[in-house]
């Protein structure tokens, strides 16, 4: 390689490094400057905000922009650092107080068009900004925020997705409306996250998960099945029947069988029998599981019949099935002796 190439490469590398370091230093300097400015104005802004909020309380139905304190705050908002400071304080007040103060804060938030700033952040290409946008929208309990949470609940970044899902569960009127989107996919982690959030909330209205059993994404169907089992939703029976009839996915069928057993859904018995008779639908494990479920919900006759007329291709597993049922239900031995 000619020496001039090496020199050129070294030169470009050096120039690049210098720019990189200058860029980092500049960003750090900007950040420190913002922090210094925020600290300098914090006390002044807090006092002004407190005054404005109690002024608004008395004039909530009038033109808020005419209030001198609000005017001053709006003027200060031309500076992005101060605007962020005001936004943070407004969110903090919403979390600290309840009643009249929160009403005034919301009125101030909309008068100052703070929601547009928060929405703009949710559309940022930077992950931290998107999360910040969600925090600002949810912190103020903005009723129109749900559509942004739904959009972000399918975000490519897992952290953004998590925060959007949590915010939607906590603040949207319909906590799981993001599942209505046919593109929503749930990972195992998402499912655990949603389940944990729902169990923490006392006042949230648990939806009928049966409505998502015809979802185009299998992960949502499986999650809904787990939730039907968790919340013992008998109301999902019709949707369960339809899904059981048309599905041949082993996990789907297994989850439905679990529900049938746990909720003691005797209404599902003809569907299970029909599926068992058509041996193509079940693999060995599922066949045994279905037999066990039938036995558990009290249909010993059906179990006996099906066990003795097991399809040819499964006959090899008959012994296993017999042992399985015998082990789980010793009193069912008479079935096996038939």
């Amino acid at each position: 390689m000619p020496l001039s190439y090496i020199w050129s490469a070294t030169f470009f590398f050096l120039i690049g490094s210098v720019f990189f370091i200058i860029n980092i230093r500049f960003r750090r300097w900007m950040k420190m400057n913002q922090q210094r400015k925020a600290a300098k104005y914090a006390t002044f802004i807090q006092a002004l905000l407190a005054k404005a909020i109690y002024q608004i309380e008395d004039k909530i139905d009038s033109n808020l922009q005419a209030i001198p304190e609000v005017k001053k705050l709006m003027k200060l908002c031309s500076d992005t650092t101060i605007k962020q400071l005001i936004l943070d304080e407004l969110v903090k007040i919403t979390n600290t107080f309840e009643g009249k103060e929160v009403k005034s804060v919301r009125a101030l938030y909309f008068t100052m068009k703070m929601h547009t700033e928060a929405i703009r952040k949710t559309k940022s290409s930077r992950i931290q900004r998107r999360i910040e946008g969600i925090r600002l929208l949810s912190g103020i309990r903005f009723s129109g925020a749900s559509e942004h949470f739904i959009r972000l609940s399918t975000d490519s970044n897992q952290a953004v997705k998590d925060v959007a899902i949590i915010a939607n569960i906590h603040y949207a009127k319909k906590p799981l409306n993001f599942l209505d989107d046919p593109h929503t996919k749930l990972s195992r982690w998402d499912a655990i996250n949603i389940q944990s959030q729902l169990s923490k909330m006392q006042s949230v209205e648990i939806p009928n998960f049966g409505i998502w059993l015809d979802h185009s994404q299998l992960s949502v169907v499986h999650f809904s099945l787990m939730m039907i089992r968790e919340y013992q939703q008998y109301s999902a029976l019709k949707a369960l029947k339809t899904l059981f009839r048309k599905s041949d996915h082993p996990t789907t069928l297994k989850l439905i069988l679990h529900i049938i057993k746990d909720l003691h859904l005797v209404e599902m018995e003809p569907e299970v029998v029909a599926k068992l008779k058509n041996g193509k639908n079940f693999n060995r494990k599922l066949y045994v599981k279905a037999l066990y479920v039938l036995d558990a919900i009290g249909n010993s006759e059906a179990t006996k019949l099906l066990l003795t007329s097991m399809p040819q291709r499964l006959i090899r597993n008959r012994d296993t099935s017999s042992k399985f049922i015998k082990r789980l239900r010793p009193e069912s031995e008479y079935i096996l002796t038939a």
Partner: protein
Amino acid sequence: MMNAKKILICDDDFMTANMISQKLQKNLETENTIAKDGNAALKALDSGDYNLVITVFQLPYKSGYDIIQHLKQDKDEKTPIILLTNGLADDVIMNASLMGADDFLRKPYNSIELLIRSRKLLSA
């Protein structure tokens, strides 16, 4: 405001302290002092007489227990105390009450509730 009652508000969050102060001033016409940390709170208690103390439990340098102990046991004063709690365990509130806290309010604070309790303690 010659006969204005004096209230000491101890909260490291200046925004919350300010909001409480504005509310009390507007509705009860009180004269309020804000202490941002535990040391400032104890100093204020030593240098002035207050008709009511409103304090959060977790303050920088000192806890709510320290404020109550200083006021009720060390100084043996009858000044009532309202404790503002932020998700504290019931036994902490119970202990504070046994030590002399007169009332408490859980977060999120309802300012009307705070006003009623303050008025009641100020007139007692």
